[in-house]
């Protein structure tokens, strides 16, 4: 069964000319790659474009994958680079999480949560909404840490920074997410009252 093969086995089969092995590899990682791309682009169409581009790039350089890290870590570093290039092309400033102006712009971006009834929404809805309001770097770190099964060292490798810096960034990102989550929930309660 193809689906039970490890990433490395699928890569070896792909390099041996078996294209369906690469399709299996895509199916295995597409949800997370798409989600990670979405954290940067903030819309599904662009995220699809970025994610697709990442898998094509990964295919092109599959033979240069040294297996010194997990395939997912290597793949996410491609996602990170591709998404950052995409954002640069779109002239969106993502250079610093301390850029207060950008931060406020995103913070004040109107959400869609006031159009629906709070009763129909789960807590995870608000969480996703709050993540969507974070800066790309913050959202990506949180997503990689909680859903990408990446350690601080692996996230550091993906982002090309020190593990200690990732630790600090993760702490700040969690604080910001917590604040946004609370703010959105408070807003909902006010709407209901």
């Amino acid at each position: 069964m193809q689906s039970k093969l490890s990433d490395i086995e699928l890569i070896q089969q792909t390099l041996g000319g078996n294209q369906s092995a690469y399709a299996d590899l895509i199916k295995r990682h597409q949800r997370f790659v798409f989600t990670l791309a979405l954290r940067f682009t903030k819309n599904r169409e662009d995220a699809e474009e970025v994610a697709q581009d990442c898998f094509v790039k990964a295919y092109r350089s599959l033979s240069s994958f040294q297996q010194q890290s997990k395939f997912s870590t290597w793949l996410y570093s491609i996602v990170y680079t591709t998404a950052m290039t995409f954002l640069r092309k779109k002239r969106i400033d993502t250079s610093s999480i301390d850029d207060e102006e950008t931060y406020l712009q995103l913070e004040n971006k109107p959400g869609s949560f006031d159009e629906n009834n709070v009763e129909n929404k789960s807590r995870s809805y608000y969480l996703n909404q709050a993540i969507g309001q974070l800066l790309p770097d913050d959202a990506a770190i949180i997503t990689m840490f909680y859903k990408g099964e990446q350690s601080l060292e692996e996230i550091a490798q993906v982002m090309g920074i020190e593990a200690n810096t990732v630790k600090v960034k993760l702490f700040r990102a969690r604080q910001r997410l917590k604040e946004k989550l609370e703010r959105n929930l408070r807003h909902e309660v006010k709407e209901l009252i």
Partner: protein
Amino acid sequence: MNSIEEKLWNYIDGACPPEEQQAIEQLIATDEVYRNKYNELLQLNNEFAVMEIDEPPMAFTYNVMQTIRAEHGLQPSKSRIDGRIIWGIAAFFIITIAALLIYAFSTVNWSNATHVNNTIKIDTNKFTGVFSGVAGKGFLFLDVVLGLFLIDHYLLRRGMTKVQ
């Protein structure tokens, strides 16, 4: 306040040294502020851990594979052309040319060389013998196969360029 949160997050992540871990455990057990904060962050951590991830469109894999097929002619670069084949072909031709040159120069009688035209004398009868035998036919067959391989490769690349 931040330092408490930072310590607690490290504790939750399992990223603090054993001594600090013990100290925090002690604080959680004895200090109510710590305990409340810890419970709050732990709940938040559990929520983050079960957050949903998005689903790409249904045709995502198909679209990626289509792009790859169009760009790469069905196979990734490493398996498309094995470098050893190229080096093998190159080595074959280099050795053949070198052997011919060595043989040619070894037959030259340099002491009698009075005119340039007479310096290199190759006994062509020997070569005729070689090329009319099984080895010669094999050599020609190999050339034909290599030629067909190159033509096929050229036509495939041309086809791919047209598709793009």
